[in-house]
């Protein structure tokens, strides 16, 4: 704990895929295992760290999450939980997908967990046609094949939409 307070004023620069630069305090960046590993190895904090897979909008969200969690690391868990649910509340699917990809790339486990869970919750009670639309998945079944797959396990969970 002491070392992170000590290094509070150290900053590093992250660059999004669309070229925007973000100045981030080091203790905030440490929420990401990827950045932590980079800092632990001899990557100088003066360098700009490019994040070619993450656009500015997503990166801003990710850093907002990291800041809240870094600053609140010793405070109440309840406050963080309500922040987390508020954070994802009105997010559309596209933004959620980007967030999952970014959290996966930057190795931010907490964020990956809540964003992946949010997507899972969204599709949980949807019929498969709707899931297909949400994920933009092309249906490569013939109607007969699809009916056969559907029939396979019908008995186990009768009454599912």
């Amino acid at each position, binding site marked *: 704990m002491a070392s992170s307070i000590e290094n509070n004023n150290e900053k590093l620069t992250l660059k999004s895929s669309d070229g925007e630069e973000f100045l981030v305090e080091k203790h905030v960046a440490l929420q990401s295992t990827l950045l932590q590993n980079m800092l632990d190895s001899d990557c100088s904090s003066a360098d700009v760290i490019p994040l070619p897979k993450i656009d500015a909008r997503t990166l801003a969200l990710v850093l907002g999450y990291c800041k809240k969690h870094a600053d609140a690391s010793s405070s109440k868990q309840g406050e963080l939980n309500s922040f987390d649910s508020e954070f994802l509340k009105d997010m559309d699917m596209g933004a959620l997908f980007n967030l999952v990809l970014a959290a996966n790339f930057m190795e931010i486990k907490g964020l990956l967990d809540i964003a992946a869970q949010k997507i*899972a919750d969204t599709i949980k009670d949807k019929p498969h046609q709707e899931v297909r639309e949400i994920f933009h998945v092309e249906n490569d079944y013939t109607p007969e094949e699809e009916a056969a797959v559907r029939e396979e396990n019908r008995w*186990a969970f009768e009454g*599912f939409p």
Partner: protein
Amino acid sequence: MEDLWFASNDIPIDVLSRLPLKTLLNIKCVSKQWHRLISERSFIRQQSERKEPISGFFFQERFQWCDDDIRSISYIPVNTEEATKVRRSIFDFLPQSIVLLSVSNGLICCRSCFPSPQPEVYICNPLNKEWVTLPWPTVPKQSSLGLAFDPSRDTTDESTNFKVVAVHQNETETEMEDLYFSYDVYSSKTKTWTRSKEICQCNHIKTSVLTSSLPFPAISDDTQSPTNLAGAPSDSGDHRRPSPDVLSPPATSIVTPVTVFIEEECTELSICPVHVLFALYLLSF
């Protein structure tokens, strides 16, 4: 978005493995790629860490005073919002009519209905209609059989390992009144039945009543003992109960016959309600 989404399998696995089984079965219909993903062993293992609610109950009746088995098995799902439909054809994919013996983490252990010229034991997963056949062990037909399958103990993905324990009651040769239980254990790794060196001495009182419903919890409630699913050598030590070698099905898998009297016909039937939590485990080796 799909390209990005499926660029690495980690992310769809991470999201989809959080879904309950009934949703997964439903979204197998989304596409062939999703179907494949949901059918992969690595995915199944990750998904199985999720706690599933009970899917339903199996019911099978049994005559108390007649050796012939009753063939019909009913399945009653529990999660439905509509009127519940009882299904009687769940096990039609097996080559013979069967008697349910035990359930463990989604796998079901059953045997041929008696009388049968060549009785067999089946371990099956009715969700994907897979089964493996085991020879009937060299034990009397009224022996109890229990399935032990604990996927969380097995860290390898290649196969689904399980054990079957057959318990039967013996009389000691020296003292007529002394009874003991002996155990035959089948391992899916060695594909053979082995007689366990351990026996369970028991008070002769009431043991004959217990034969058909030998309490497996008695050999399983010691959570400290190595349950040896992976086939690792067990340290038998000084246990009184035959727990180390004989494997323990979790408490949820116990078949508990309940005896009821049906007055009109004056026939005593025992009914085995078995609740089951289905899982996606594959039996193909």
